[in-house]
């Protein structure tokens, strides 16, 4: 059998960092074509009528990736309906006539569980290779989230148009090819100092807006019509708290994190309401306390 070519749905810039994980299961990787209007149209055409919008985007990514040559798809899971996306998407793609592998990530977050999961696909892999790759990806994810956070806060005030975007795309390029944690650390130091050196025309007390809500429409600019950039261009310092690293941190922490948030949200929420709901309320309340000028809540319909 030919070597598998894996692909997975887009969300923000994460594909660049996550793609090398394909090595773990001894596969080539095909980054799905960037999301366009066409992606959404394909996704919507084949999705259940009122499935929530991330489902349709993911399905569009899958179809475009398969058409571009992928033969194994990977879907994650969790949250409220996301955990069930994969099974329905696989059935839809089969009915459309695609003959592809479909890997549903269903592992826990413990190291032994991850190794066991990977060995199902790549039995001979060494534990140290798995650990190295995961540690490297983790470092990259953290750094990408950190850099994008800084960009969100200062891009609205750049003196020369496009300076942040140039820096960001060069940075992502380098990050995606970094092979060691040391390289990532060096990139981190460089990125921080370069970002700090960009000339800004920032008032003493700029408008600050926090975005909260459902993770996909928060993190995929195409799905929210680049609302973060829209705000920034109007002179707003944009704060977002939902990133993949934040989600993973919370997942590892589990119930403790939820119980802590509920102490704050008690006037509105006495109990955990699932998915991103509790966190959105918690962060909104914190932002009000911290004197933010506005909170923007994004969510998909359905």
């Amino acid at each position, binding site marked *: 059998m030919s070597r598998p070519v894996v692909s997975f749905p887009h969300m923000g810039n994460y594909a660049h960092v996550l793609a090398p994980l394909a090595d773990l299961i001894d596969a080539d990787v095909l980054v799905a074509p960037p999301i366009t209007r066409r992606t959404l149209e394909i996704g919507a055409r084949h999705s259940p009528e009122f499935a*929530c919008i991330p*489902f349709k985007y993911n399905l569009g990514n899958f179809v475009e990736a398969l058409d571009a040559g992928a033969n194994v798809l990977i879907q994650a899971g969790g949250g*409220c*309906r996301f955990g069930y996306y994969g099974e329905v998407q696989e059935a839809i793609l089969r009915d459309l006539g695609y003959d592809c592998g479909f890997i549903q990530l269903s592992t826990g977050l413990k190291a032994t569980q991850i190794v066991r999961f990977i060995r199902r696909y790549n039995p001979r892999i060494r534990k140290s290779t798995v650990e190295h790759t995961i540690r490297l990806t983790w470092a990259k994810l953290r750094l990408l989230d950190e850099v994008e956070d800084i960009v969100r806060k200062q891009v609205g005030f750049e003196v020369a148009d496009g300076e942040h975007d140039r820096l960001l795309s060069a940075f992502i390029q380098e990050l995606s090819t970094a092979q060691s944690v040391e390289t990532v650390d060096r990139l981190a130091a460089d990125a921080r100092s370069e970002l700090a050196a960009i000339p800004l025309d920032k008032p003493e007390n700029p408008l600050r807006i926090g975005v909260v809500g459902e993770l996909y429409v928060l993190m995929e600019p195409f799905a929210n019509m680049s609302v973060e950039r829209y705000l920034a261009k109007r002179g707003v310092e944009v704060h977002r708290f939902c990133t993949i690293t934040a989600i993973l941190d919370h997942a590892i922490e589990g119930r403790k994190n939820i*119980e802590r948030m509920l102490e704050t949200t008690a006037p509105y*929420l006495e109990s*955990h*309401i699932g998915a991103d709901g509790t966190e959105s309320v918690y962060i909104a309340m914190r932002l009000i306390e911290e004197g933010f000028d506005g909170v923007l809540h994004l969510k998909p319909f*359905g």
Partner: protein
Amino acid sequence: MTQAITVGLPRSLFYHKHEVLWTTLVESLGNRAVVSPPTNRTILAMGCHAAVDETCLSVKVHLGHVAWLEGKCDGVLVPRYVSTARKERECVKMWGLADIVRNALPDVKLLSYSVDAAGISHRPTWQTGELYRFARRLGASRVRAARAVLAANVAQARSDGARRRAQERLLARPADKPRILVVGHAYNLFDELVGVPIVDALEAQGCDILLSEHVPVRRANRLALRVSPRLYWTNNLRLLGAVQLLRQRVDGIVFLVTFPCGPDSLVTDLATRVLDDVPSMTLVIDEQVAEGGVRTRIESFVDIVQMRRERS
């Protein structure tokens, strides 16, 4: 013994699964249960008024019932269901139900308990334990609370068993009329405004009706997991299982969905993909559905089913 109180039971959502359980529990504790009337246009309007626009019809109906009970009881029972088994989940709207009601109708006093067998939001709790603690909170002694919970569980199991056996008997009879399986959540199937008119219309067209709610749960779940191993919603396991269990013994399947149900939006799609040659129809109901349109669709669906029966 503390003073007897009146417990309000909204005739919506979990009531349609726990009617006997709750009324038996409340009454054997020496309290009074007041149940809101079957859903009508006024109750729905009250619910829509209290709800945010984009929530599902079933939650709107629920809010209407809670609003109706305001001032007619000492507290309205709105429990919270996160998970009833370790590997199963309820829809997140059920996780948040007590909070939704509390925020939408701040003047209503709520009585609640929280079932989360998977321990996602707090230490694991099961329904029987939660009912016992609920009874204790109402002031019952240990013995009385335990007896009441036991009696309530037995009574509910009896009632479920009777309904299941009635459906078995129907299936055992010679199929002289077309048989239609109506698949939907109990709170939709048994709602006077949502499911009952559809079941009535199908019966008026000369069909025998089977309901997804009246199938044996364990067998249904097992069959559902065979076609959909990752399915985790308790209700949808039953729905998909009912389809698998009965699809070869019925002439047609009607999926009854309230708009915009998240779990159903995905699971109904999957269910129609595993049906090979059974005619099926999905009816999506919202607060603006016109009865005439639904009736026409039901009539033409029954026509198709009849024609296939005559041909074979």
